């Protein structure tokens, strides 16, 4: 971190450094400056950085060089002499008992070295125990002399053989030193003017900003994140889908009823009572309140009849339709249950064409994995009008998906108990280079519409898709749990961009 102002000690070094640079030819090396000033190299480095922060006063290029340094033991020898020299020095003219010598810290190593240098001898047979005597009058402590050379920074005067010998004895080591080669910058000066960090109200008031120098900004750094709240990405996508439907003139259905009777969720849609979707494996049933207790009675009778006996041009499913099955309360498995309620309501008035949509939660008691949860949001669009055709459904699907930025569509025949024809909608995914399913659609069966009381020449077309899937694709999320539910990563919520579905 750069300090705004140079500290007093630093300022001294920095000014000295600037004067040296002024005098030097070419430039100066930070290591040399440190050794000649007798300060730690880090102090000079600090001064370099402080000066760099002031603009183009200096320019500094980092260099690395190798250097020999004394080890802890080597430093001790440079100061006090080699172990063998210290052994020699501690032996008086009349000799020293070997046992006494061995008590000294340097005794053991120094003894063998001094012996091999033939500076001393050992009289094993001496009266009173083995005794050591000098064999020469004086010695030259070459090890110490060499280490002192290194300590002074003149290791280049040593022969390589010597350096290796000392390295082997772990008295020396070679280290890499980072230093700066410092030269004059484009606005070089030997005086340091204090730079202001920020413009202040005072400066504006008294005009002093005109004379001040301002510290340059670091435009590479990120700004401070604004203190704000964020909308959830799935809800941002929901908002866009609502917007699309509203732009297309669709009215929003009241889907705020998660608990639904099997009657409205299945029977009214002509989904037979033994249909596998009505198994406990797929649907959440309620134990409390277990049953729904109010139905439009006439309509219920017509539904019962069309299932069990047929009618309205249909053979029916021909089975024993049971009210007990229809009464069972469930967590709705699709928002189409609400569409059924809305179409029934519509049929009770003089018919006028409608366009409806909804986006809300639905529930499936399914096996969970990375892309499936027990609840998800279903997007649904419904159009009821006289004489609608399959071509109309295809046309409106093109319009809807174009608003999502999806233009390449194709349709696959499919099966759904309450639509006929039923079409799966596929779009060409440029990234995956294949056709992927993006939704389901169809024309509601007469067995669903006519018992409600809708006019015979009214057709109802509808389509649906999940909200989670396009959101996961849009925001690049692979695991649905990272998107929906309490395991969400809030950082992802904070960072997610706005949702623009391009058309």
């Amino acid at each position: 971190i750069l300090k705004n102002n140079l500290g007093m000690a630093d300022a001294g070094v920095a000014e000295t450094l600037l004067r040296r640079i002024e005098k030097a030819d070419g430039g100066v090396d930070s290591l040399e400056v440190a050794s000649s000033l007798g300060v730690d190299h880090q102090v000079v480095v600090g001064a370099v950085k402080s000066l760099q922060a002031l603009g183009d006063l200096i320019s500094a290029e980092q260099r690395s060089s190798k250097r020999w340094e004394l080890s802890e033991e080597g430093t001790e020898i440079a100061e006090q002499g080699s172990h063998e020299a210290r052994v020699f020095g501690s032996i008086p003219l009349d000799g020293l008992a070997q046992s006494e010598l061995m008590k000294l810290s340097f005794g053991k190593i120094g003894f063998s070295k001094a012996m091999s240098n033939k500076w001393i001898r050992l009289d094993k047979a001496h009266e009173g125990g083995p005794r050591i005597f000098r064999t020469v009058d004086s010695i030259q402590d070459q090890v110490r002399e060499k280490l002192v050379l290194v300590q002074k920074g003149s290791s280049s005067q040593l022969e390589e053989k010597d350096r290796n010998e000392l390295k082997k004895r772990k008295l020396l080591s070679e280290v890499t030193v980072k230093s700066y080669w410092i030269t004059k910058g484009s606005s070089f000066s030997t005086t340091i003017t204090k730079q202001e960090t920020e413009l202040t109200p005072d400066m504006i008031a008294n005009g002093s900003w005109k004379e001040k120098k301002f510290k340059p900004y670091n435009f590479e750094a990120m700004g401070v994140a604004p203190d704000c709240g964020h909308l959830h990405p799935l809800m941002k996508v929901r908002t866009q889908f609502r917007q699309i439907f509203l732009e297309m003139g669709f009215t929003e259905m009241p889907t705020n009823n998660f608990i639904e009777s099997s009657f409205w969720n299945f029977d009214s849609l002509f989904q037979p009572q033994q249909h596998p979707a009505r198994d406990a494996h797929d649907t959440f049933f309620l134990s409390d309140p277990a049953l729904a207790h109010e139905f439009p009675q006439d309509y219920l009778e017509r539904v019962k009849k069309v299932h069990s006996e047929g009618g309205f041009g249909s053979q029916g499913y021909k089975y024993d339709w049971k009210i007990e099955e229809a009464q069972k309360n469930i967590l709705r498995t699709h928002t189409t249950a609400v569409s059924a309620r809305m179409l029934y309501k519509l049929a009770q008035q003089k018919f006028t064409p409608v366009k409806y949509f909804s986006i809300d939660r639905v529930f499936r008691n399914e096996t969970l994995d990375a892309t499936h949860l027990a609840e998800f949001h279903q997007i649904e669009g419904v159009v009821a009008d006289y004489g609608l055709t399959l071509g109309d459904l295809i046309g409106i699907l093109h319009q809807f998906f174009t608003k999502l930025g999806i233009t390449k569509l194709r349709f696959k025949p499919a099966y759904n108990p309450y639509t006929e024809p039923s079409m799966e909608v596929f779009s060409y995914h440029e990234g995956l280079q294949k056709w992927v399913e993006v939704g389901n659609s169809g024309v509601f069966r007469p067995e669903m519409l006519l018992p409600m009381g809708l006019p015979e020449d009214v057709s109802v077309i509808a389509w649906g898709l999940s909200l989670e899937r396009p959101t996961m694709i849009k925001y690049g999320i692979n695991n649905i749990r990272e998107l929906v539910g309490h395991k969400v990563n809030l950082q992802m919520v904070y960072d997610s961009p706005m949702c623009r579905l391009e058309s």
Partner: protein
Amino acid sequence: MPTVGVKRDLLFKALGKTYTDEEFDELCFEFGLELDEITSEREIISREQGDSKASGASDVILYKIDVPANRYDLLCLEGLVRGLQVFKNKLEAPRYRRVSPVSGEPQKLFITKETAAVRPHAVAAVLRNITFTQERYDSFIELQDKLHQNICRKRSLVAIGTHDLDTISGPFTYTAKPPGDISFKPLNQTKEYTATQLMSLYKTDSHLKHYLHIIEDKPVYPIIYDSNGVVLSMPPIINGDHSKITLKTKNVFVECTATDLTKVLLRGEPNMLSSCSLELAYRKEKLSSEFINQKVGINESTEKIAQLLTKMCLRSQATGVGDEIEVEIPPTRSDVIHACDIMEDAAMAYGFNNVPHTTPRTYTVANQFPLNKLTELLRQDLAAAGFTEALNFALCSEEDVADKLGKKISETRAVHISNPKTAEFQVARTTLLPGLLKTIASNRKMPLPLKLFEISDVVLKDETKDVGARNSRRFCAVYYNKSPGFEVIHGLLDRTMELLEVKSARVDGYHIQAAEDSTFFPGRCAEIFARGKSVGRLGVLHPDVINRFELTMPCSALEMDIEPFL
């Protein structure tokens, strides 16, 4: 959606044409099928059981094809090939009929009244003069299994038994007996078992254990004998070993027992070899080409539409009376129950992707659902107020909405789910607070303070509604930091009321007053009143609540109904 696995080369041989994978995929798509996977036996075993088990397995290419749930007639290689060949105009739709045996009387199956207590219906048929190859035999067995899994609803509605007719002698009797009185050698076993012993034997059988429940608790079990008392089968569990079919079998006796008479009559067995079902009733329907043109949005001649339908195995011809078409519905197409089903087949044969796009001229003015409109507007402004939106599950455990908040489940008015697979789905939430606290617990590494909100529905029991429950739209917010920050949450309430144009006033506006609530720290909870009605609460959470949600910092919260502000 059922998936049929067929050997690619056999399929192409039967189709009389070799396709590339892409071409075949395209053909499937047009016909409403999906080429789901291209694989081999070795690949499947290696994926499911590891590479070591797969060595030696076949490398023959398999196509896994998804068939729509209504097309029982396409559930085997033979059925698929026939459907596609007719679709491609290479074959005429077959005509199924019942034939009497060349010599002798037709076989008879008598049904006794005892079966009424367990499985009241049965039909039977005989397939004569057939020649099995290993492939045909495998396909026959697999078709039977596919039918069991799909239209027969895992044997609960219908169970099919097939027998070598030459090992048994009619007439046959379908009856029901107490399990202790039934004893026979079942398929692939070496000794006789009583029905009671069989039920315990199959408890551990990975395949059969799924069907035991269908009859387990009944006083009598269904059983079929031949005239010599040989057991053919104990439906819907297992056949006898005596009459099992082999590659050498020439004549197959088929029996179907059922709880649903319509389904047993509709069952689509005849596809494969020759006709067999009890009644192979063809039905005739008349409709106009105008009806089809109008519903699909095309303009084709009556003759062309008759041709399109014929391509879909629905033999059709123009009757010459106006634009009338007579359509014959084969017994294999039990899904055709209304003129709209015929219309769909015409559209498929025409090609969905060839139908011209049109735009409905339906003129409407869009309206938002007022509650959702309010929610949308409020969400934007709450985010602008510095709170981040969370999105939690509507389902949760009883503990989440009760014990953890220091409440009793009986006080919550929660609706209960009868068949949750795990505790996470025991109830629909009655409060948004647990979800927000769990969101914080999963994000404890995030910098403080954490300020979250959610606007969503909770579900409450309500006897005035037809289903006995209703949604309630709530707004919940929490502030989680080193200090409780009641003033922050209180400030958010003030801001929310400002947004809703409710002023701070005792009578006409909103105010808060001290309240007791076990979720909150004593003396740190207040009730929110708007225009004299209680709409929610706010306060500092009780330390026990904070602990139960595995949190460590003080936390203040607000939860209120927004429906009163509509």
